[in-house]
């Protein structure tokens, strides 16, 4: 546990001393700010749906950029072997880096709290959907980060990691819009990332959606640990 935290701390520090996190966060805020304000102006409704729906999609563009560095850089610089042969266990390394990425996600999301603040300042929004919207955003983000984490562990090249992560995420995003029938259609619909998000924007917490996002995050973190393990005997 202590090792995990130490690794996380180190990773967080290097996140916030590199320009990538700032540039990505600033870009995220510009884009979501625009969607928020434009939707508010056109529909004039005091809720966050104008921000949350496009924001969730922007998040899948952002997640690979934030996670591409986590393992790829270590592989490139050759420090990964060192990290893995320490008395530190593989899983602690994986969890530590994942935790760091979650903290960055959290910081980015917390900054967008400015939008609901504006809503409360100028209007009378329903607080329930605001709360659940943020919960959903964080859960979605955690799943996206896990996918990016895996992509990063598969290659030493950060660009390749980002592209791979993006590819995987887009696949999981569009799999629900194929409109297929039957049991295959139902399975694909369930696997779709945005399908489980809209309930949160309406103020509903459905255990199925929570379980889905947690499973996706867990599965990809697990796969990352296994992919690291294969390095030992590659």
């Amino acid at each position, binding site marked *: 546990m202590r090792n995990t935290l130490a690794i996380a701390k180190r990773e967080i520090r290097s996140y*916030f*001393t590199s*320009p990538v*996190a*700032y540039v990505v*966060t*600033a*870009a995220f*805020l*510009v884009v979501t*700010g*625009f969607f*928020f*304000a*434009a939707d*508010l*102006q056109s529909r*004039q*409704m*005091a*809720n966050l749906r104008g921000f949350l729906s496009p924001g969730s999609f922007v998040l899948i563009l952002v997640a690979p950029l934030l996670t591409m560095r986590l393992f790829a850089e270590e592989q490139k610089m050759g420090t990964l072997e060192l990290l893995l042969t320490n008395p530190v266990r593989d899983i602690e390394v994986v969890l530590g880096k994942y935790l760091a990425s979650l903290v960055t996600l959290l910081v980015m999301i917390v*900054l*967008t709290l*400015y*939008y609901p603040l*504006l*809503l409360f300042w*100028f*209007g*009378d*929004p*329903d*607080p*329930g*959907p605001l*709360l*659940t919207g943020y919960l959903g955003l964080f859960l979605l983000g955690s799943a996206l980060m896990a996918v990016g984490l895996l992509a990063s562990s598969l290659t030493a090249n950060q660009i390749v990691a980002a592209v791979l992560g993006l590819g995987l995420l887009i696949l999981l995003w569009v799999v629900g819009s194929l409109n297929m029938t039957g049991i*295959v259609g139902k399975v694909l619909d*369930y696997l779709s990332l945005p399908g489980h998000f*809209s*309930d949160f924007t*309406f*103020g*509903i*917490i*459905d*255990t*199925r959606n929570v*379980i*889905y996002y947690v*499973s996706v995050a*867990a*599965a990809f973190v*697990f*796969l990352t640990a*296994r992919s690291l*393990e*294969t390095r030992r*005997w*590659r």
Partner: protein
Amino acid sequence: MAVVTRVASVFRRIGVGFSSIWGALRGLSLILAGAGVLALIASGPLYLLVPEMANSAIVLAGVGVFLLLVALLTALGQVRTALLGRRGRYGSNTVLMVIAFVGVMVVANLLGIRQSYRMDLTVNKEFSLSNKTTKVLGDLKAPVHALAFLVPGDPTRETTDNLLKEYGHRTPRFTYEIVDPEANPALTRLYEVSQYGVIVFDSEGHRANVASQVTVDIPDPSTGQPRSQVAPNPTLEQDVTAAILKVTGLKQKRVYFLVGHGEADISDPQGQQGYGLARQGLVPDNYEIFPLSLARVERVPEDAAALIAAGPRQELLEQEKPLLADYLNKQGKLLLLADPATPASWSDLVAPWGLALSQGRLIDEFSYARPDKGSPLVQRTQYLLGPVTKSLDTTFFPNSRAVDITRIISQKKPDPAKGEVSPVQIVDMGLTTPASWLETSSGEPKYDKETDTVGPLPLVALVAATAPIGAVPPPASDKRTRIAVVGNSAFASNQFFYSLGNSDLFLNSVNWLTEEEELISIRPKPFAFRQLVVTQRAWNWIFYSSIAFLPLLVAVVGAFAWWRRR
């Protein structure tokens, strides 16, 4: 001899040829394997997405399998090392672990689907079904299928889908589908759908329609002119439940508001004394609400699940009295909201049942809605906490009189040994505090021991009776007359309906009267459409600060961190 040699050499050459082909194949084994895998992968989507080429897809899959087998055979030695060598064992170990983990995730999700819970955190509980809907769906015997004719771009599609999905969750007998009218003209014509956003309900041939949308006018932000916009039907859930009741042949319960004696107007949702909000409050419980003029009918309608007299100011007409008395005698249900101005004939109406309306205004010095002592505030603890008031929040009653229940209390005590029971029983009640009295003189309220009755006094009384006071109760019947009397009508008027627990008292009393106690609840209070209406300057601030303020802040912090690192 030469022939044998010749043949042998041909065979030898063929053998050499074969082994060189074999050798060539072995080198190609990777490519063959790759081609085989590609063929298999391609056959899957082909089969699923292009049904016309299903046979070709199967053939392709077959070719893929064949190529894989050939690759396997030619590279048998390598395959063996791969699977059984050290790396191979690690590899298969990992694959098994991954399969196991993914399997656990799949099971967890399946369990989650089977036993899911939904929490609705909206203030209005917009996404939870009302008690009435839950009850109707729980009792549903016949299958109901709904077809929502919504084009893909319809703004009400998502809310309609969410709502109907909730219905489907409650009972397998309710099914629905969303139909694109433009892609299914035959179906659209079959159900005679001619507008956008119609939901058709069908149960064994019986049909009903519900509109999923309404048009509202909202001011256009740039021109200020009203602009028509399509909005989701605000009473969609009630309409859907009503349609289900209709197509399955179940009747909605009818509640009649008496008119002709100066009662409050149920068609007025805006005036302070109107009862429009009270009427609207009854809609989610799927009541059909009608005014009833007793002077014009021969008898109270058979289908009257309850009668409501909302603050009558004039006497009952002679010919109306026997109609009501008759209705009450036959297990009728009455809600009487009587003000100090309500005349005596109304008190006489409920007298056979042990109830009377006390003369005078109720003043409560201890518990009143400031600043008026003539508006008694009745807290939770002042209620009997029976079926109607058990979860009630505070209520208050501007300008009220008391309900006299002394005759009920002083009924002949029944002999339990003989199985006797009082004909009239108090089911629920609300009292004023001991610091209250009935003020009989006009002017400043002051307690006068000579003329004023001291509290605690009943303000709200609900009774159930098998027979009038003094009459012999019929043998073991579970049919009851139910009467609820409140010494005030203003508490449920538009001005005060949604204050504190007033609406709940009114609605729960009606639920109790119509014998639908399972609907009794504390209902969330509706809020206005959450529109954001601000000045142009405010819009500009919102826009520019959202786009520029935060990102700039981040950029500045980033630059600072970078500079520090240098």
